[in-house]
């Protein structure tokens, strides 16, 4: 229990820091909403593939705003050498990773919910019971993005061109996540249940499990000087 308690201490510290700074959260939310809005004006509502296009818009907005969050996750640690301060604590490195991951997941998921709400208004989508499926999908996608993002943010933390490097690393690896999420949400937005999505949600589960395991294993080596 002490392990999770200390991980939550790190997550809570990160969330408090972000809430007080506010710039990251504002950037995330605004970018996500902007993407939804701009694509709405750009897309022809009569197009046959509108359902898939809408899903693409939703996940593009989620992806761009989520990468902002994870990109900033080690920003507070870079100030005043705080990452070294964390590494000096007598805790497993995996605990530090878990704490950062929990903080990033909460930020990414909360922003995803805001984007989803805005999306349903702009695109006049009525989900009904599909809300549960979409929220579960959002949870899985947030875990995946936060998992990869936290790891690669740590990799890029000590590099000058960290933002560009993070984007170069992370976007190719997020392709399976986006494809699976978009296909699943297309069906959900059409009023079909999760069962109709076939293996796509399971692909997300496996994706999250693999990258979670790998991230926990390599994080120690990533942060070591």
């Amino acid at each position, binding site marked *: 229990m*002490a392990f999770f*308690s200390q991980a939550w201490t790190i997550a809570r510290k990160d969330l408090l820091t972000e809430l*007080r700074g506010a710039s990251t959260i504002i950037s995330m939310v605004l970018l996500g909403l902007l993407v939804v809005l701009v694509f709405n004006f750009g897309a022809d509502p009569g197009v046959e593939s509108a359902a898939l296009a809408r899903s693409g818009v939703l996940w593009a907005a989620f992806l761009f705003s989520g990468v902002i969050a994870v990109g900033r996750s080690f920003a507070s640690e870079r100030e*005043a050498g705080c990452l*070294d301060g964390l590494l*000096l604590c*007598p*805790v497993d490195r995996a605990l530090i990773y878990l704490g950062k991951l929990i903080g990033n997941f909460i930020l990414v998921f909360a922003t995803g919910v805001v984007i989803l709400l805005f999306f349903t208004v702009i695109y006049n989508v009525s989900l009904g019971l599909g809300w549960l499926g979409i929220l579960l999908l959002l949870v899985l996608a947030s875990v995946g993005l936060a998992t990869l993002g936290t790891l690669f943010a740590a990799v890029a933390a000590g590099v000058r061109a960290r933002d560009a490097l993070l984007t170069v690393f992370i976007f190719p690896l997020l392709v399976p996540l986006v494809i699976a999420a978009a296909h699943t949400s297309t069906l959900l937005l059409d009023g079909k249940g999760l069962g109709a999505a076939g293996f796509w949600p399971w692909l997300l589960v496996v994706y999250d499990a693999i990258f979670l395991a790998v991230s926990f294993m390599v994080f120690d080596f990533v942060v070591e*000087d």
Partner: protein
Amino acid sequence: MEAATSTRTPGVSQPADLWPGAVQPTASPEPAKPPAILVRALVKTYGPVEALRGLDLEVEPGAFLTIFGPNGAGKTTLMKVLATLTRPTEGSALVCGHDVVREARAVRERVGVISHNTYLYAQLTALENLEFYARMYRVRDGRKRALALLSKMDLAKRMHDRVATYSRGMQQRLSVARALLHDPQVLLLDEPYTGLDQHAAKVLAEVLLELRDGNRTVIMTTHNLEEGLAGCDRAAILVDGQLVYDTQVKGIEVSSFRDTYFHCVRGELGQA
């Protein structure tokens, strides 16, 4: 100019072939307690750069050792190895009897670090910073301990202010409080005076003197000879990843030690 004489320095290597004029330490009886720090043949490389080259060091419990050296000598690297922030390439280092690689967590429980980096979160208040680290170090009654240290460092009145509003001197005092939260047996001070004005440096020096309770081992690195020699009982000079000089400080004049320092750095010790 004659170099300052090195007095008895138990267990520390001082190669005469490097410094012909240096005095060989006399043989000393084995210390009663195991050393607080024991470093043997320590090597640390960063790619082609050899930051530490076969360094040997032994520090008895309760000692205050100041290590001087020019930029790039390896001082910070040595501190990072002892603090378990980086692993040695070769050799070994024991802190309070625990290996820095195999027993890293045990070392971290016993070591406090004060650096030119404060390790403080600017958006958190002083009290929040200390409570955070108290939880990470699993300090019993962490809040009570944090309040006591804030009072000791004369920061109690500003404890609810964010660290971003603190002066550099106040941040460094808070950093000292952070390092003392878990009552470490060994304190590593890596150039703690960096960026401090004279008043803040004086306050920090007073605080560091108070830490000398005979039970805590302190190792400090610094460029500043006056600040470094004040309060310490042993001084060493690190050049190019090796300890080239080591002496007890009692009775040494700063000016004499300054000459020795420059001779060591320029490699002129012992030459006519």
